[in-house]
């Protein structure tokens, strides 16, 4: 990304009140950047202006690469750390490429947080099952961190993660740490092994039949590409998890983030406003409409 100075960013943001107008980005400075995989980075941001309100796990922010464009990105950090924002994004085009390239010191714009959360509070007393495909682990990470910080409120904690190959595993330090906890079950599977890989091979849905949770008492949180959401939700239903306790984070082409522009319309809902997290009973009829 072309380096943007703090003052230039202030000019770009303009004189509107970034404290109240959800369309005006707040300036944040990248303070740390970690390469997760070949094309995916995690960045830590500190506010230069009034910080955006605290986010809940599952919500997203619009990240603005000045002069390039905006994209919706879910938060991947610990929601209790309100002073710093953390997100993880993959370089798939001009805007995400510019944002991924932003090094410590670079300034980017942030609007949000927007959308619905995973709503962990409603899952007290249940088994929590987090199911991630690829970069889908990023939005689930913040929920998992929150659940771990309130461990006594939940029964089993299970993370099922699928990636294409071992090189695409993100948050390796976290995964090692979570695997070491006696009260968290972590299962990872890859589509294709590699030299040195001694774990499971197969898609993430193959982990469902034997995953250690009680379907009668489980709440599932699923994040990944839409096709993975569909088949994972189906697998959870076959295991006996009720549709209203399967929560899916979906994605559409979001522009405004606040339900004004309609770009992210999915049938009767706007994903930025009514989602991105939906329960399966609400989303299933929409996922099965080809034209949507």
């Amino acid at each position: 990304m072309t380096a943007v100075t703090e003052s230039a960013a202030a000019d770009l943001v303009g004189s509107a009140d970034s404290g109240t107008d959800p369309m005006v980005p707040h300036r944040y400075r990248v303070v740390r950047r970690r390469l997760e995989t070949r094309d995916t980075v995690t960045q830590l941001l500190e506010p230069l202006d009034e910080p955006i309100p605290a986010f809940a796990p599952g919500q997203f922010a619009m990240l603005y690469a000045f002069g390039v464009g905006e994209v919706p990105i879910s938060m991947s950090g610990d929601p209790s750390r309100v002073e710093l924002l953390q997100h993880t994004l993959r370089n798939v085009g001009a805007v995400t490429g510019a944002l991924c390239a932003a090094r410590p010191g670079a300034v980017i714009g942030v609007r949000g947080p927007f959308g619905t959360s995973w709503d962990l509070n409603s899952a007290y007393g249940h088994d929590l099952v987090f199911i991630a495909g690829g970069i889908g682990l990023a939005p689930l990470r913040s929920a998992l961190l929150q659940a771990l910080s309130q461990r006594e409120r939940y029964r089993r904690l299970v993370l099922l993660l699928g990636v294409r190959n071992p090189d695409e595993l993100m948050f390796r330090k976290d995964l090692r740490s979570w695997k070491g906890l006696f009260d968290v079950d972590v299962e990872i599977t890859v589509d294709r092994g590699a030299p040195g890989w001694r774990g499971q091979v197969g898609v993430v849905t193959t982990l469902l039949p034997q995953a250690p949770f009680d379907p009668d008492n489980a709440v599932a949180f699923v994040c990944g590409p839409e096709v993975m959401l569909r088949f994972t939700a189906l697998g959870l239903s076959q295991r006996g998890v009720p549709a209203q306790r399967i929560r899916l984070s979906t994605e559409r082409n979001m522009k405004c983030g606040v339900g004004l522009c309609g770009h992210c319309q999915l049938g009767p809902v706007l994903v930025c406003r009514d989602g991105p997290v939906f329960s399966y009973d609400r989303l299933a009829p929409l996922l099965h409409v080809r034209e949507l």
Partner: protein
Amino acid sequence: MTDEVAGIATRLAKHPFLAGMPDVHVQALAGLARLQRWPADTRLFSEHRTADRFFLLEEGLVYIEMPIPGQEDMVLETVRGGDVLGWSWLFPPYVWHFSALTVAPTEAIVLAAAGVRERCEASPEFGYDLIRRVAGVAIQRLHAVRLRLMNLYDPTPPRR
């Protein structure tokens, strides 16, 4: 029934692959079964060899793989405790199509294929029950392979 066979019958009845199978069939299978353990890195069977048994895994992790000349063996999928391993024993020419290697200490109930096939012939009710179970597993695995072909985690993302 000896204590050993009764013990195996109890374990068979608990195995997910046989869940709900009538006792009479489970007990018949127990007479054709033995328990076995292997350390990691043990080859359970090899491609092109006679498929004279199958495995109800209780613990562990096994790679189903295929050798590729000049490269490391390609791992096609993993099976683990609770899964069934092997169906080549059920259909002529009764040879393994792939190889299987333990990647963790593994424990299984091993069933003698010829005896099970004879039982299938003698009792169509038992045979139908067993074939339905094997078909269910085959469908699950076919489904999983199709999902992998779809590149489940990385369908071409929108460029932004």
